[in-house]
């Protein structure tokens, strides 16, 4: 059996195909950036998570430092318990504040971390104590209307 030009063309085709797949993985997708090599998990409880989804980014000062790994409802406290997979390169003090923020006016929701001043750092499995819930637009509007109605008419 000898090599033919047909084999060459099939080889070129396969190389182009895998090249396209590589382009999709590295240039279009975030294959390299999305998966942190080493992570540690941190928990936090929120009164209301709004529209937060699993895999939403966890940002501090605008930099992505982790991702939401799991969201579940805690029947003991009747609050939402969110678990983050944090990039092992970044450590945060124990009194860090976790708040649910929205990117833009109607954008997707993410977790914002404001580091505190504690000397101890959060470890694997630790819980963030101070949290701020998502802003629910209906409640905000309702409050605004209520305040306006309470104002004395002049």
């Amino acid at each position: 059996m000898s090599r033919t030009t047909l084999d060459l063309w099939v080889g070129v085709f396969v190389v182009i195909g895998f090249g396209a797949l590589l382009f999709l993985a590295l240039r279009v997708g975030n294959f390299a950036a999305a998966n942190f090599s080493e992570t540690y998990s941190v928990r936090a409880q929120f009164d209301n998570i709004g529209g937060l989804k699993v895999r939403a980014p966890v940002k501090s000062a605008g930099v992505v430092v982790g991702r939401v790994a799991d969201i579940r409802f805690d029947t003991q406290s009747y609050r939402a318990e969110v678990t983050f997979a944090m990039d092992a390169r970044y450590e945060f003090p124990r009194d860090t504040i976790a708040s649910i923020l929205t990117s833009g006016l109607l954008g997707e929701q993410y977790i914002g971390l404001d580091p505190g001043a504690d000397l101890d750092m959060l470890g694997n499995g630790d819980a963030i104590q101070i949290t701020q819930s998502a802003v629910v637009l209906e409640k905000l509007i309702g409050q605004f209307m209520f305040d306006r109605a309470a104002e004395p008419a002049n």
Partner: protein
Amino acid sequence: MNGATTLLRRIGARVVEGVWRVGFAARFFMLVLLYSGQSLTRIHLTIREIYFSGVLSLLIIVVSGLFVGMVLGLQGYETLQRYGAAESLGVLVALSLARELGPVVAGLLFASRAGSAVTAEIGLMKTTEQLKAMDMMAVSPIARVVAPRFWGGVISMPLLVAIFSAMGVFGGWLIGVVFIGVDEGAFWSQMQAAVDFRYDIANGMIKSVVFAVAVSLIAVFEGYDCTPTAEGVSRAITRTVVSSALAILALDFVLTSFMFRG
């Protein structure tokens, strides 16, 4: 009364015929899988089929991918700039190509470009009794003719889908960044932030593999099962294109509802 009975009888015959064909197709599929060991050890047979269904489909896939991407770029920009979100053009182009348009459009093109050719070839071999002759020589036509064509299709189509999607993203970039002037950095970085490898691209590739199996099976089966006349072969080719298109669209709905529930 007599007319109604005849009608009922015809419908019944059609249904029985359809169920019969489905059963035969399932047995045929098992047989193809059983004999594919031989076709993979004699790899040059499969490579020849990859050449005919993959390499020769390259041109149509590249050109259509480019144009689909360019149209997405134009239409997406038109809508997005109204909301001041023109930088999200990359996200729109990449997500729609990776999740849906790539596998589906490339699958439809592949079915009509390569699937019909495979059906015609096998059908003509049956009509000219080449398949029977092979059987007489104790060469299994399924191992020698059908299985290499099936695997050729299954191997080439996912690669073609990847090429299609990549060309589409390139087309979107060409229109969005080069012609319209969307900021290049935002175009790529927003795309990379929104497109997830496992969720979007890997699911799209899984779709393409499923479509590849469906289209290749339909193509070889219609050829093998055709009525061995000139008219029968032409009918089989028509059926290949029609049923492949229906199978791709129906499977796409099922897979999407499993994969992208949100």
